[in-house]
């Protein structure tokens, strides 16, 4: 009888994932012993865990390691994205506590679920095998479905969870089918091997199975990053999900989708770039335009930011369509900045909101500028950054993405991009108009700002402003990160 030999596996690349998984499971156990009303402690522990995982991840910078026979890798690309995921999770944890307490659903499971989501996302970024990426995606998605419907007592949250689950599973089907077809066409699921085999094909675009696989995978990921015309779920889910989870969903999972997309398309299918570039061109234009035009008319601020997040996915797709180093690095930079500015904006929304998801319209910001000057200034910073006005990270990010399109010769794409950007200014300004130029409709009782949410705001403002003024360091990191792929 043959002995099954277990190959020596290098665990270093997935050390942070293991750490977070163990922590999450431990937290589930600990949860049982913590009386309700004190669940915040779980949040603090998981925040510390996220920071620790960040240190672990950061230590792997510049030291590429491959493991599990090449299905997982620790490279700068993965590391950069993992940092984004951890940041989004950390910030989301910080802003959860106060909101969940208010809505009466501060259940201890929240924090482990966030950690599981992060683990899934990290695997997506680190996976160099279609299967690993798929598994990561599923781990992430399943946890997210629950998080979207986490506010059990709220009908809209339930709707969000269910809708996300149904549409999400549907899109996962597309993705998996695409992967299967790609496997059929190339005989492997390893990204590097796919690249080699496709590279040897004389005319890869004539291989129907491969092209169909590519299209289906694109569809699946386009759903995850909320690109038009696969964005229909976004507004409802973003509006219905608990606000901190909306913030989290709009930053982390979107970035994870881009991580997987970038790795699959740029590493495995560069020979098909002519084809997918054109597709992405159309997708980017659609996504930006649909997102921005629809956002113009939204009164509910979460819905507005949902459409704005669609638009932002569109800007990132501009860099993707360009498909060059600048574009890829631009996406990395943009996703990082977007994490700060968007979660920051949601943090302010949480503070404005009242129990039962009340006070969630743009009009409810009336008079904020003089009632809570510091908070309004922070919100202004986020909004200016989202609108892409210097000196903020959002501007540098757009600058990067649009230059990649110009570099590639996609002038019209860049022109459509900046016109979109100009249109978007209107709805971001609208919030500012309410904050500074309108009187409050009623004397509102002001919610206390708890230390965790204050910390998250501080981090977000710093993360939005500093890279806007001195972007060099982060730009270098982003450029090193995409060098390997």
């Amino acid at each position, binding site marked *: 009888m043959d002995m099954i030999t277990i190959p020596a596996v290098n665990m270093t690349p997935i050390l942070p994932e293991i750490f977070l998984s163990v922590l999450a499971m431990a937290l589930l156990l600990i949860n049982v012993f913590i009386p309700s009303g004190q669940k915040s402690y779980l949040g603090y522990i998981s925040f510390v865990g996220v920071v620790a995982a960040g240190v672990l991840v950061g230590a792997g910078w510049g030291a590429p390691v491959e493991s599990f026979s090449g299905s997982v890798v620790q490279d700068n690309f993965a590391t950069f994205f993992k940092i984004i995921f951890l940041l989004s999770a950390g910030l989301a944890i910080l802003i959860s506590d106060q909101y969940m307490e208010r809505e009466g659903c501060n259940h201890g499971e929240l924090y482990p679920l966030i950690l599981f989501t992060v683990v899934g996302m990290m695997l997506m970024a680190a996976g160099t095998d279609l299967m690993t990426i798929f598994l990561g995606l599923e781990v992430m998605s399943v946890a997210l479905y629950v998080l979207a419907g986490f506010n059990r007592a709220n009908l809209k949250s339930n709707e969000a969870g269910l809708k996300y689950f149904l549409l999400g599973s549907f899109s996962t089907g597309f993705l998996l089918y695409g992967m299967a077809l790609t496997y059929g066409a190339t005989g492997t699921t390893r990204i590097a091997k796919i690249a080699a085999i496709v590279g040897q094909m004389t005319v890869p675009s004539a291989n129907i199975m491969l092209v169909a696989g590519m299209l289906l995978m694109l569809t699946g990921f386009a759903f995850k990053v909320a690109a038009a015309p696969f964005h229909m779920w976004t507004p409802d889910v973003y509006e219905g999900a608990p606000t901190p989870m909306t913030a989290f969903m709009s930053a982390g999972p979107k970035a994870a989708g881009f991580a997987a997309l970038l790795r699959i398309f740029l590493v495995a299918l560069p020979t098909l770039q002519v084809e997918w570039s054109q597709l992405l061109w159309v997708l980017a234009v659609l996504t930006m335009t649909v997102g921005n035009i629809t956002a113009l008319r939204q009164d509910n601020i979460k819905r507005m930011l949902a459409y704005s997040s669609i638009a932002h996915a569109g800007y990132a797709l501009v860099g993707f369509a360009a498909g060059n180093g600048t574009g890829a690095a631009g996406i990395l930079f943009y996703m990082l900045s977007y994490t700060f500015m968007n979660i920051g904006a949601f943090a302010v929304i949480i503070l404005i909101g009242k129990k039962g998801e009340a006070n969630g319209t743009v009009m409810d910001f009336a008079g904020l500028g*003089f009632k809570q000057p510091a908070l309004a200034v922070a919100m202004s910073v986020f909004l*200016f950054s989202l609108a892409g*006005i*210097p*000196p903020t990270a959002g*501007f*540098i990010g757009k*600058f990067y993405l*649009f*230059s990649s399109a*110009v*570099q590639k010769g996609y*002038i019209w794409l*860049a*022109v459509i991009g*900046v*016109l979109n*950007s*100009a249109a978007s*200014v*209107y709805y971001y*300004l*609208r919030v*500012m*108009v309410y904050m*500074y*130029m309108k009187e409050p409709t009623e004397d509102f009782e002001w919610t206390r700002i708890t230390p965790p949410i204050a910390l998250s705001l501080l981090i977000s403002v710093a993360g939005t402003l500093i890279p806007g003024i001195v*972007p*060099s360091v982060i*730009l*270098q990191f982003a*450029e090193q990160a995409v060098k390997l792929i």
Partner: protein
Amino acid sequence: MMADPHLLTILVFFPLAGCLLVLPVWKRPAAARPLALGVMTGELLLALWLYASWQGLAALKPILPGYLLVEDAPWIGAFGIRYTLGLDGISLLMVMLTAFSFCVALAVSWRAIGEKVGLFLALLLAMETGIMGVFLALDLALFYLFWEVMLIPMFFLIGIWGHGRHIYSTVKFFLFTMFGSLLMLLAIIALHLLHAQQSGVATFGLHQLIATRLPAGTQLWLFGAFFLAFAIKFPLFPLHTWLPDAHTDAPTAGSVILAGLLLKTGSYGLLRFGYPLFPQAAQTLTPLFYTLAIAGIIYASLVAFAQEDMKRLIAYSSIGHMGYVAIGIAAWQPVALSGSIIQMANHGVTTGALFAMVGMLDERAHTREIGAFGGLWGKIPLWSFFFLLFSMASVGLPGLNNFVGEFLVLSGTFTKSPLAAGLAFTGIVLTLVYTVRLVQEVVFQTERKPLPLADLDRREICLLALLALLVILMGVHPAPLLDLIHGPVKILVGGAP
């Protein structure tokens, strides 16, 4: 004499530092006002000191020909963006105008702004930094940064302290300018990439990019994008529609700065960046430029004649006056260009003064309608005297400042395009018509409504006397200013004047 290039950084960021100082005391007007006054005066003194020593600086021959001071440091290495500031005669004139206009803006809002004073002052100071930066930046990316940054305070200024349909106006103003400037951003990026392709050097520096060889078609597109951004700011007909709204609804200080400075950033951008970077395209578009400028002069003058709101009337007159600046640039000829630049400063002073005066009247009568006044000469003689003086300056009465600019513009343009000069001349007649109507109905005539009006107080007299002195001085003895811009203009046009 030792000249430290860091002076330019101080010039740009001193107001911002002042803004940060004002913010902590923003709830105490009594502390914030003197603080802001101190910072703005300091800035003005620095600008004047630079002016006093410009000949000494010119003798030192810094890195770039024609520049008095240049500061250069790397900023965003990945893109080749540098922190390059440069001061030449033209920017120095604009810097002085900026520092001065802000003092005027502060003086006119000393009493008029009673609410949220600290925030108002902080925004003014932040805007001063942005505008200084626009006039000094020599790196296109840096220029773009300041170009956008200066909009933000103005947005709040009109939106918070404005009146009438101020929210509509401020959003319109912001969107118009954003739209133009984003396309310019793309053109800047494209130019940068084309240059990198040709020379292998990634740079946004103006003086490196000038050397880029561009095919005629590309040049036209890129210039088009720059032109659009600047034409909106200028504002050229038919892109001017934001201006009357913004002016009418802005607080007086906002109007002073809009007219005095923001419009100048458009013309300054065109002559500093647009023309030097794309000379052939600019040549090709000259007829269009002439046409728009002349159409603007005639159209704005006709519309101004029909206005009932004094502020709106002056806003339209601004469009007309800027039309002369545009013609002078379009002629791209030393005399006309010098005239344009002088006219930029003149217009800033004269129109700023007129806006300030209407603001003073508004404070007293709470209306700006022409039909509400009449016979002011008898009631508030001092106000009437100054108003008459500035109106005459605005018309271009010889001996007062606008005459110098308009004369130079028209005589220079005449050598290039007699037709354009001739048509522009008719504009002067139209200007006379609506200005005389304004003065006649407000200052003379008989009293139409019994308004209790007090004449100017000491603060206002000081301010207006200073402005009047400038108007006369620049009209009678413009030579020092012409000397100051002579060298840079020669370099820009590339020939002996």
